[in-house]
């Protein structure tokens, strides 16, 4: 590095690399402190759980307690469902549906790229999309049951609808929003149309496509539960609805908690993947 670089080095963003040392020091020194901080933040949650336990055990009578079992009973029910393998079986069926639907919904990525890149495609396809998009996936359930019957295909169709549109819209926006100078720079460096699309536009749009995937999987997961509530013989949605018919509210709550936790995990996994695969995309890696 030349002497002239000194001035510019001072302008380096704070996150890297000069502050790398201090950042690691903070991390190293405060591991127990950080754990404590995390736990401290759980205080209110813990208080709520205790309150719930107290209300359920001491204030409700035997009949109403059936409607709101205490956390201890829910934990017991969770253990039952886990040890018999039932929870795992339903979870597996739900996840399988989500994944199959997601793979189908990936078709929205090439479609979105084509719509974002070629005006003709957008002009033709956009009216169709605009007609279908405002219809909530759940509104398709009755028709979907008639078409596909009760079971996997019906569920996958509903989830597919939930995942498809967020990915599509974000892909279109991502492609259309690529910094024009990046495309110009690529052309001046000798890239042809295909290379511009593949090497520049697609990469530049990737963070937004991933955002679409995150939103889509979230919406899909919600749609999944709804689809399973009314049209399935297995899955977490089926589990909680089935438990309701026999008044096993503890099972219902276990199912609900599982749905929430899995949704959270999916989102967390995608974010971790983004940090790994798109390290340059600061907006997402935060």
């Amino acid at each position: 590095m030349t002497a002239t670089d000194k001035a510019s080095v001072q302008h380096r963003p704070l996150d890297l690399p000069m502050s790398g040392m201090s950042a690691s020091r903070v991390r190293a020194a405060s591991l127990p402190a950080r754990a404590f901080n995390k736990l401290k933040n759980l205080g209110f949650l813990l208080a709520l759980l205790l309150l719930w336990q107290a209300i359920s055990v001491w204030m409700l009578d035997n009949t109403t307690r059936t409607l709101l079992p205490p956390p201890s009973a829910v934990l017991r029910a969770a253990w039952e469902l886990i040890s018999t393998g039932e929870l795992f079986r339903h979870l597996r069926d739900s996840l399988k549906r989500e994944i199959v639907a997601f793979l189908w919904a990936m078709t929205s990525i090439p479609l979105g790229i084509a719509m974002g890149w070629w005006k003709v495609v957008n002009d033709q396809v956009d009216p169709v999309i605009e007609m279908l998009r405002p219809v909530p996936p759940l509104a398709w359930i009755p028709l979907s049951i008639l078409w596909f019957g009760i079971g996997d295909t019906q569920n996958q169709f509903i989830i597919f609808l939930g995942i498809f549109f967020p990915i599509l819209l974000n892909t279109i926006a991502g492609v259309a929003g690529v910094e024009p100078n990046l495309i110009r720079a690529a052309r001046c460096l000798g890239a042809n149309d295909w290379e511009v699309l593949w090497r520049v536009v697609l990469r530049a749009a990737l963070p937004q496509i991933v955002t679409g995937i995150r939103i889509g999987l979230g919406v899909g997961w919600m749609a999944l539960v709804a689809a399973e509530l009314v049209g399935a013989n297995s899955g977490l949605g089926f589990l909680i609805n089935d438990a309701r018919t026999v008044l096993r509210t503890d099972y219902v709550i276990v199912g609900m908690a599982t749905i929430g936790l899995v949704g959270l995990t999916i989102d967390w996994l995608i974010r971790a993947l983004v940090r790994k695969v798109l390290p340059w995309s600061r907006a997402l890696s935060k």
Partner: protein
Amino acid sequence: MSAVAVVDVSKVYPGHSARDEPVRALDGIAFRVENAEFCSILGHSGCGKTTLLTIMAGLEQPTSGEILVDGKPVGKPSWQRTVIFQDYALFPWMTVAENVAFGLEMKKIAAPERHDIVARNIQMVGLSGFENRYPHQLSGGMKQRVSIARALAVDPEVLLMDEPFGALDAQNRSRMQEELGRLLAQEDLRSKTMVLVTHSIEESILLSDRIIVLTRRPGRVKANIEVELPRPRDETEGGFVALKHKIRELIHDEFEIEA
């Protein structure tokens, strides 16, 4: 190794809506940049100088007139005329080395040779050791160095620069001007034809063999000045100051016309 002729170039933009008057950005621009010459296009913001540069690059088409490089009309953009942009236009998903290598990949240059060229150009702009950084990890000045290295790596015949230091603070800007002056004086770069768009009179005198002063809206050639001051140039030296005053007068007139 190319002479660039700008032949009677005009550019008219249609208005945003049907009621709007069409905007005449450039009007009958004509000048020549000789082979291996450094030419600045100087003008106020809004005089269409950036438009002229993008037309020279082939990124936009003139409404009338044409650009000839060695007598042949400019077609599509190509690596023979690379552009250095004010906002750097680095690919954020590529490291410094990958950015510099991009044009070489497009040129289908084999990997071993590519690595050599990349390393040489990164070293030339003083960024050795930063090869694996991403653009967002660099300061503005460093980003512009990468962009210069990327443009030079493909070995263009004509190098087009659109206010390359416009986004830098004053201190960094003068440093980069000085360095670019030194860089371009190197043996293997002296044969390249360079066109710089700028609104800074000092910058244009510091670097150019020829300065084209544009009027504003529509842009016309107001003056075509050959700079014959010895290099390296000194901003405090008499000839420099005199030329600066002369150009300032020219541009000052422009303000009064506008008012």
